[in-house]
């Protein structure tokens, strides 16, 4: 089997004009590589939700993507405030997004639930004051 492809992106904080660059680039890459459109769509949405969360809630971060023929793994790492109550954060509708990002259309409290919905595996590691890591795996089939 061919080797895994590793991609790395820096996600700048508080820059909504650039948010989505990393997930957009991954989407294009997967398309070039011939992955099926449903898998591409799930990767794109889940990664964008995680990316935008780093921008809004954590002052930016990094994305590491590993592409294998059978699955795509994504790790999003930030050094933001951490998530005090992960179970609560995972609930549909829970959001601490400030007003200025709500006016852009964010803050529905649906981002983490969407990641859960579109991935085959999802895990959050977080420490208050240190940061958050979101792990996701999407199976190509």
């Amino acid at each position, binding site marked *: 089997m061919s080797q895994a492809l590793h991609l790395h992106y820096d996600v700048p904080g508080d820059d*909504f*004009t650039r*948010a*989505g660059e990393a*997930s*957009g680039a991954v*989407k294009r890459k997967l398309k070039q590589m011939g992955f099926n*459109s*449903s898998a591409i*769509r799930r990767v*794109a*949405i889940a990664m*964008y*939700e995680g990316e*935008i969360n780093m921008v809004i809630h954590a002052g930016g971060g990094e994305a590491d993507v590993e592409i294998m023929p059978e699955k795509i793994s994504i790790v999003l790492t930030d050094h933001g405030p951490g998530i005090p109550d992960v179970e609560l954060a995972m609930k549909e509708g829970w959001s601490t997004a400030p007003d200025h990002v709500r006016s*852009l*259309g*964010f*803050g*529905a*409290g*649906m*981002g983490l*639930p*969407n990641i859960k*919905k579109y991935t085959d595996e999802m895990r959050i590691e977080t420490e208050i004051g240190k940061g958050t890591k979101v792990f996701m795996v999407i199976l190509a089939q």
Partner: protein
Amino acid sequence: MTVAQMTTVLNLKVLAGKQSMERLVAGGYCGDLLSWVMGRAKADDVWITVMGNLNAIAVAVLADVSCILLSEDAALDEDARQKAEEEGVTVLQSDRSTYDLAVAIGKLLS
């Protein structure tokens, strides 16, 4: 029905992304909160919204909707228009309400 056909029948304005109007419209989704759209809209839906910003274009690309339809004459930001051109996202506009447009498109699709 294609985006182009829908545009003609409903007399919509084309603000960006003329090159992608042969895409098929399979259904529709109405909403302005981006994560609801990403969670609930399906690929090839027409997305009816008042959100004409850069993030809306990113969402349209990632969620793979057939086009964005701005209702109530909602504005498309200039940076969003450029991004839509670049990404090949068709952005349409109408002075009708979201409800009216959804009803009209529903009839066309049935």
